[in-house]
């Protein structure tokens, strides 16, 4: 997998058809033998042209992936957002200790007194607390747990 592009593309990198493809294809494809064919028709394209354009947009980094979006929680996993207040002088050392845990799925430095925010992903709910306790022992710093209590439906779409 190529690394994620973090800079904007030139404004003329995508044309109106590319933008229409991105806007439409965030909503989901039908699970049928030829999923691009039906969609291509809606967009006034043929199947090959649609696939070629998606390929080209993936190559320039406008699209990061095409495929199923899995809800890991629905598969039985346990997740928890956690935060720590890490003294500036110890930041890199604590980061190394935290990141060494395979349960740490992602970790961000943020602008706040609580300056380290990470997500624990475990097979079983009990492992969340165990892992957090272990990180507290290793670092000598408290780990605050922010489990999801309610998730709201999201209408977010990137308008290309």
């Amino acid at each position, binding site marked *: 997998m190529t690394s*994620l*592009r973090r*800079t*904007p*593309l030139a404004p003329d990198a995508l044309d109106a058809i590319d933008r229409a*493809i*991105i806007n439409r*294809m*965030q*909503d989901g*494809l039908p*699970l*049928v*033998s030829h*999923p*691009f*064919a039906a969609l291509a028709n809606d967009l006034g394209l043929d199947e090959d042209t649609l696939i070629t354009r*998606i390929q080209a947009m993936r190559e320039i*980094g*406008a*699209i*990061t*992936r*095409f*495929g*199923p*979006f*899995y*809800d*890991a929680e*629905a*598969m*039985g*996993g346990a997740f928890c957002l956690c935060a720590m207040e890490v003294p500036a002088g110890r930041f890199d050392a604590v980061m190394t200790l935290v*990141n060494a845990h*395979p349960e740490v*799925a992602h*970790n*961000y*430095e943020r*602008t*706040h007194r*609580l300056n*380290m*925010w*990470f997500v624990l992903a475990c*097979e*079983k709910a009990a492992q969340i607390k165990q892992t957090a306790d272990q990180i507290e022992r290793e670092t000598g710093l408290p780990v*605050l747990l*922010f489990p*999801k*209590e*309610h998730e*709201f*439906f*999201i*209408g*977010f779409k*990137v308008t*290309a």
Partner: protein
Amino acid sequence: MTISALDRRIIAATTGGLPLTPAPFAEVAGWLGVTEDTVIDRMTAMQGAGVIRRVAIAPNHYALGLTANGMSVWDIDDALAIDLGAQIGALEFVSHCYLRPRADGWPYNLFAMIHGHNRDEVETLRAQIATLLGPSCRASDILYSTRILKKTGLRLTEGGL
């Protein structure tokens, strides 16, 4: 739902994405030695159960100019939290919206991730949320990420995730 051994193989084969070919499910079926109909049936069942949210493209926010994001956090009245959270989640610039427990020194119970073209725009959008919440909001803050310290994909092990 119970994830079968075949489901698990389909998941493992497709977490990285589907091939960009006219019949992508047939190609996955070929990798796994099953029929195209079997792959489509199992993925349809997983979508019905919410294990698959959708089969779609993921645009790159950064490439499309949405380079700024901030985790906005709000202390709102618990009695109104479900109603107000639903309104905030529905905003087109909010990509994640959750209720989470408060903690010592942390009065915020609503988390909403805001995306914009720059930090000024994110602040303007944050002000829109503040207006929407009105007096039901007692305090708020926003946390910008300054560094990604670790990022991994979905992990699959023998027993489960």
